[in-house]
């Protein structure tokens, strides 16, 4: 059955129609990025996880971090649990890799703010 979903790739929020019986054909998208999103959302939905980790040796006590790619939605909570065990030492720079291939996904956990 054709499923209707809202595209979250950009703030425009297109109303996509995805047909699992027709090779996950996507319609209703206004840009090409809606197609892979629509397919993935039904087959294997993924999300970027953003959070903070503790940091020592700086005025700030928390450092924002993110997965540099989307991870499977089902793994979000596990990623959060892992993030909560991490403590960084200042200085850090935007893009510094904290954990490579987090939980065997293709995503690295990276720093989002310069903190010295």
């Amino acid at each position, binding site marked *: 059955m054709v499923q209707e*979903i*809202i*595209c*979250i*790739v*950009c*703030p425009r*929020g297109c109303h996509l129609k995805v047909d699992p019986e027709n090779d996950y054909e996507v319609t209703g998208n206004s840009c090409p990025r809606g197609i892979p999103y629509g397919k993935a959302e039904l087959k294997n939905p993924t*999300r*970027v*996880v*953003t*959070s*903070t980790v*503790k940091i020592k040796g700086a*005025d*700030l*006590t*928390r450092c*924002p971090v*993110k997965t540099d790619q989307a991870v499977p*939605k089902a793994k*979000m*909570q596990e990623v*959060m649990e892992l993030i909560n065990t991490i403590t960084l030492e200042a200085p850090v720079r*935007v893009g510094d890799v904290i954990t490579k291939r987090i939980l065997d996904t293709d995503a690295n956990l990276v720093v*989002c*703010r*310069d903190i010295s």
Partner: protein
Amino acid sequence: MQNIKEYQLIIIGGGPAGLAAAVSAAKNGLNDILIVERDKYLGGILNQCIHNGFGLHYFKEELTGPEYSKRFIDLLADTSVEVALDTMALNLENSEDWRYVHVMSSSDGYRILRSKAVILAMGCRERTRMNIQIPGTRAAGIFNAGQAQLYVNLEGYMVGKKVIILGSGDVGLIMARRLTLEGAEVVACVEVMPYPGGLNRNIVQCLQDFDIPLYLSHTITDIKGRNRVEQVTVQEVDQNGKPIAGTEIYYDVDTVLLSVGLIPENELSREAGVTLDPRTSGPIVYENKETLARGIFACGNVLHVHDLVDFVTEEAESAGHAAACFVRDGGCVTEDANIISLKTDSNIGYTVPQQIRIDDVEKAVRVFFRVRKIFKEPSRIVFRDQSNSEIASFKRPFMFPAEMENVNLPRQLLENISGTELTVSVEG
């Protein structure tokens, strides 16, 4: 007499608007610019917006808030722009030749600065429980969503275990997800309007992803609790916003987050005699973001509340450019006959700019606005002059109050209108 330090341009606020305005003014030839920022860091609200989704329009990639502001902080480092951190602007005075900015900081005490031009970039603040008058006790555990965001994301404190969110503005939605991921239970998001206040994508990825129910046309009618919040009453409201008896739902929660709107922070603007627009709570501006007070410009959330930082950046760049032109050559001076006022019909909440000086428009002027209700069917945004002739029209497949719209009005069309008013409306 105290020695008054002089600048070409003083920018009040070092958030996304102030940063982009400074970079733009520097790029356009000013070399004597000061940013006054009350926080210890540049970046403003973006520092606590650790979620991603910023920059899709401007950088064509998806960044977190801190990453977005870093792009501009890095650009600023290549300019001669001076930054006064931990410094509060207390007062702004306007005179013929100079704008006077009174500032205070622990390191330098009280100082009076002056500049040829000022850019207002103070942003906005959250509406509070006092603004919306929710009945109930004054228990602890009631936070503004942005305030909770600061505690959680910058200071590392959780605000509660079982949470209800009033208002479906973007900050509230983002916090619903954030608190859930950090282990809290978010029982519901309650919105008094019949439509969500935030972007569709945030309804999906912040509420639906975590099975958090959204109650439209509902509100909180009571908060109970002695020391800490213990119970909240939610009720459906009728078309006039009046609670309907018999629809009560009771939630045992310890925390209430309020995401009930943002108000541009214009105390300084008022003191300087800048005319405000009651519809936006921000200054009335011309096409180049100059306020009706000559030499004072405004951009970002102090001008009107945005939903995308990308548009703040664009607006701030335009203000920075205009302020640089003003300092260099006196800016735009024109006759009243060449000023077009933009009016709105009941479907449109406001426009920015509110006034257009045709002489100052190079090729086209971008007009931002919000609709006041949901338009699900394709409709047209129509500009009509005083003889009711259609000057321009723009098709939209759908429009939502939560999403700011914009259109480009070519100068050519503006030159041939009858009268000095254009009315913007939504037509079928």
